[in-house]
């Protein structure tokens, strides 16, 4: 790195008597001096400004607008008036909302549990000395690496009745199962599709955690005569717990906000049995009801805030 001070600006970090090129008389101590701080502050602000502007204009302002819209009867093309909590009051009798609230717990909860079990199982398998292990890892990541809409369109075809792949496989045993048109089966199908798309990430994250566990722990346990299962329960689980907690919270946030899985498989149906908040909000916008659509989005904000709080606390622990 040749010094080339063509610009008038003396390097903000360099103290007054900058040594000649090639000689760095100082150790790794602090090179920053308060003398340069105002220029440094100005450049820092300038650099961070574009990103902050994007965030304030495209995220901050819309967030506040959404909250405001949710108290109005705003429609596309009309500013609407303030109607207080009327949009929220309507939710109590709104079948779409009640389904979405139930599904938030059901779909998110069950798919998290399945992703945890499947992710751990796959991680344990990948942690063994498999022939061609890197290729297997690449293969296992495929559902996550392909675009979401591709995955869910393919899965929809799997679940179609009567000609979808699963029914074709089942046809010698049973008559076609109405995976997408029966309320219970539709929920199961959506959960399975969500798990298929999401498990690889759990697997790879848990695998990374498994590889940080010191081998000596297992050796010591084997000397004491612990079975494989006892080792798993007493060593593996405690060692990966922190990682799993973080993945669980982030995964919950993304699953709760997932749109493609529901929209491409069932569009929230049959009737509203697989409805979720993003789909509900999207449908309201399509029917031009901005105020009501905003209320659907704002009403889960406390849940999201809780997830985010859990996450920021967990992040510090790691």
């Amino acid at each position, binding site marked *: *790195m040749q*010094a*080339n*001070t063509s610009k008038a*600006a003396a*390097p903000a*970090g*360099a103290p007054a008597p*900058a040594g000649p*090129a090639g000689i760095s008389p100082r150790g790794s101590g602090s*090179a920053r001096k308060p003398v340069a701080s105002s220029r*440094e502050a100005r*450049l*820092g602000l*300038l650099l*961070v400004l*574009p*990103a902050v502007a*994007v*965030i304030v204009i*495209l*995220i901050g302002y*819309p*967030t506040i*607008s959404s909250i405001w819209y949710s108290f109005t009867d705003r429609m596309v093309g009309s500013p609407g008036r303030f109607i207080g909590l009327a949009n929220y009051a309507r939710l109590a009798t709104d079948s779409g909302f009640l389904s979405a609230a139930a599904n938030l717990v059901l779909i998110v909860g069950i798919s998290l549990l399945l992703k945890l079990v499947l992710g751990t*199982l796959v991680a344990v*398998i990948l942690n063994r*000395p*498999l022939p061609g292990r890197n290729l297997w890892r690449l*293969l*296992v990541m*495929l559902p*996550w*690496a*392909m*675009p979401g*809409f*591709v995955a869910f*369109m*393919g*899965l929809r*075809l*799997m679940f179609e009745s009567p*000609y*979808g*792949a699963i029914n074709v496989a089942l046809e010698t045993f049973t008559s076609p199962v109405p995976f997408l048109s029966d309320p219970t089966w539709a929920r199961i199908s959506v959960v399975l599709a969500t798990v298929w798309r*999401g498990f690889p*990430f759990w697997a*790879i994250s848990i695998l*990374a955690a498994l590889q940080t566990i010191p081998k000596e722990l297992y050796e010591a346990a084997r000397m004491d005569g612990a079975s494989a299962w006892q080792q798993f329960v007493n060593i593996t689980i405690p060692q990966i717990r922190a990682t799993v907690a973080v993945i669980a919270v*982030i995964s919950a946030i993304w699953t709760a906000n997932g*749109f*493609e899985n529901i929209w491409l498989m069932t569009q929230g149906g049959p009737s509203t049995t697989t409805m979720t908040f993003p789909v509900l*909000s*999207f449908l309201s*916008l399509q029917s031009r009801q901005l105020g009501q659509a905003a209320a*659907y*989005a704002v009403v889960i*904000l406390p849940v999201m805030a809780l997830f*985010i709080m859990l996450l920021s606390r967990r992040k510090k622990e790691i």
Partner: protein
Amino acid sequence: MQKSGRLATILGMAFLAILVVPPVYYMIIASLKPRSAIYRTPSWLPERSSLDNYIKVLFNDHFLVNIGNSLIVALMTTLLAMILGVLAAYAIARFKFPGRNVASQLILMSYLTPMVLLFIPLSVVVGNLGLADTLPGLILVYLTFAVPLCTWLILGHFRDFPVDLEEAASIDGATKMRTLFSILLPVSAPALATAASLAFMMAWGELFLALTFVKGQGVMTAPVALQHMSTGDVQQYGPIMAGAVLSAIPVLVVYYISQRWVVQGAAEGAFKG
């Protein structure tokens, strides 16, 4: 002992294969089947296969335009987000200025803000800017996830990277910006590749915002075009699957090239699952 170990390995491999392969396999098979075979004689084996679906989707349905739109949107989103992200991450990691911590908190919070909260007012904003139903409008909207994502990942890397080299350069008289470009960025290549790949992958596959913000045939991205084909009364599964397979290829190429870093980067808090 040895024998049971080998059995466990084989069972493990079989389990992984059964878990991952069938949907991908069936999708590819369906994309190669003639229309009648999907509905009338569905099967797991391709009896007659042809590239008709690919030809149909590529040359009859504006799909080349849609793929081109996806490419423009994903590349521009990635480029803009990387420029803003690198500058902001550099400032937060290396400069002292008032509001530095606020800026860093803001970026994490905005990364986790649910899109469903934003898209309604954004549709008003984009409309008022005269960008409704245009690719620049969609790119602008995609910055909402791409800028926080890129900034956050790059910031994490810059923070971990020791400042000694940069200090040596600055003592040698390099300006701050020169230090960024000639020292920090070259050694950060893996982190930059991670951030750029994830931003590209997310922008390429995004459906929710794209459905809201681009409606015309000429501006639709590939996911929107395909979901339009798939929400009609009659499912055109052959062409849809051909289109889906084609749309997956660019992302899988990006993923394959950068997977060494992407998986780790995503673990640092930037993934969907």
